[in-house]
């Protein structure tokens, strides 16, 4: 498998303090990765750096072995799409008009959207299951509907790598499962996924790799591995600064590993 995106010893500062340290990892084409870590540890920052929206203070980001800063914005936008946590629009755009913006990297300044653009928008709406919402006003949708529209917007870019910032936030358990199914479908289509996940229950069976960002005190800020390797009570306890006997997830995981040991 070849490397789609590589971060090499990336640091990032925000208003004087360091948000991200020594971030090094490699995403392969078609991989499916969860990004976990405590609140404020830099998950969103990491995703924005991966999308080329932020430049790291030091270190290097490479897309398909080329330094990110040398690649034209439009080319990055055709390869990587970031689905943000929040999207607020100042005007009453319809869902279709919002998703059409995903075609921006394919449309010239004077030429309007063509047939291939309309097809891509239709397919994105279809995949994210929001075709029936296409004429609704985006700002009037529920949180779950908005989430799916944001994903459709990302898919309209026809990316090779889809970055998602807390995609299961605001979703009920039924919609969470639908979202996971969608991510699996996209992975099967060959699209690599990197999603920051708040709900660790959803990480275990659904992602092939886990990236764990740890707070400042630890000397290994970013570790990666399979869910079995990373989601160990001892590791989570330290990374999330959570007493092992206080959260059901940690108790559950501890039992699981005890059973396996037997």
């Amino acid at each position, binding site marked *: 498998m070849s490397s789609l995106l590589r971060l090499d010893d990336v640091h990032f500062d*925000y*208003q004087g303090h360091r948000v991200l340290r020594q971030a090094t990892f490699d995403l392969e084409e078609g991989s499916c990765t969860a990004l976990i870590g405590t609140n404020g540890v830099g998950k969103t920052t990491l995703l*924005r750096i991966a*999308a*080329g*929206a932020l430049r790291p203070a030091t270190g290097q980001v490479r897309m398909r072995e080329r330094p990110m800063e040398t690649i*034209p*914005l*439009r*080319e*990055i*936008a*055709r390869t990587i*799409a*970031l689905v*943000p946590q929040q*999207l*607020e*629009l*100042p*005007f*009453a*755009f*319809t869902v279709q*008009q*919002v998703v059409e*913006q*995903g075609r*921006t*990297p394919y*449309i010239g*300044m*004077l030429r309007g959207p063509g047939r291939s653009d309309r097809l891509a928008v239709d397919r994105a709406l279809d995949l994210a299951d929001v075709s*029936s*919402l*296409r*004429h*609704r*006003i985006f*700002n*009037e949708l529920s949180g779950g509907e908005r989430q799916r529209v944001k994903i459709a917007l990302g898919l309209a*870019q026809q990316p090779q790598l889809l970055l998602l910032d807390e995609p299961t936030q605001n979703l009920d358990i039924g919609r969470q499962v639908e979202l996971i199914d969608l991510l699996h479908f996209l992975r099967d289509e060959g699209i690599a996924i990197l999603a920051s996940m708040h709900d660790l229950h959803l990480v275990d069976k659904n992602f092939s790799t886990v990236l764990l960002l740890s707070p400042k005190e630890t000397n290994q800020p970013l570790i990666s591995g399979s869910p079995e390797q990373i989601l160990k009570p001892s590791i989570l306890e330290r990374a999330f600064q959570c007493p092992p006997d206080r959260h059901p997830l940690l108790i559950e995981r501890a039992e699981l590993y005890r059973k396996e040991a037997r």
Partner: protein
Amino acid sequence: MAIEIATVPTTHAPAAGATRRRSLAPLAVNLLLIAGLGLMTLASLGTGAVHISPRAIFAAMFWHQPLSETERLILFHLRLPRVLASGVVGSALALSGLLFQGLFRNPIADPYVIGSSGGATLGASLGITFFSQWSAFGFSATALLAFVGSAATMALVYGLARSAGKTNVVTLLLAGFAISTIFTNSSYFFELFDKTGTGNRVLASWLHGVIGIPAWPELAAGTTLLGLATVAALPLMRTLNTLVLGDEYAQQLGIRVEVARVAIILIGSLLTAVAVSLGGVIFFAGLIVPHIARLMMGPDHVRLLPVTALTGAIFLMLADTLARTIFAPSEIPVGVLMAFVGGPFFLYLLRNMKRSYSV
């Protein structure tokens, strides 16, 4: 701090499901507006102390029935330049309002609120007081200085509102408003320098927003600039749609945000300068017209461009005709009239926004 504005006020919200939001067919709307502009022009030309019927105007144009000498004089030397100027001013204000509202992602942005008209006012006051005889390439010093003032103020306001790579919209509006007020009022000091007193009267009426009777070259220059700015704005309309998602998102979609932003600010400043140099300080027109256009066409900027330009022209022609007729024989500045129409509308928008302010 973030502002979210739920929706542009509309009369109805669509029912759940796949209801289609009604937006009118663009071609039909544009044709209707062009017809409306023609009718408005005729009506404005005919209205005033001396009434000249549209029939008489047509008869003079097509059937060789010449108007009387007085009528000719009134029509071609007084009314026609003024009516055309009000159309140009209306279009320019409305378009700059559209550009600024889109760029700053804010429905209450307009050249006055954002500060560009304050800068244009200061520049033009300088021109009126000190360089009234000077001109270059057919543009008066007043017009040129209005443009410089407008663009420089936008750069200043924008710089003040920007920190750590982000533009805080509330800071932007407040900074714009403060600078606009300072600059508009500092124009009054030029009266002190004006020994002859002729500039004074020009300046005083102009600060209240009076569309005078422009000389033909001045009107031609204004119209040309309006045309150029509109053509230049055309390819940026799709970019404005993308910028609605936010600066960072637009960049992720491949837009070179800084380049687009500079282009939009320059065009918006040029339009403000055109309006200010022909009509002085006219509040709120740039704010209201884009909203009327959105009610007709929805928020897609590509469709909004022609509709906003045409509606702006009709709107200000109507306002200026009213301004010179409702208290006939005396005349109120159109800027004063607009303040009374636009002020309440602005407050209405503000109330609508308040619910969705989040701090």
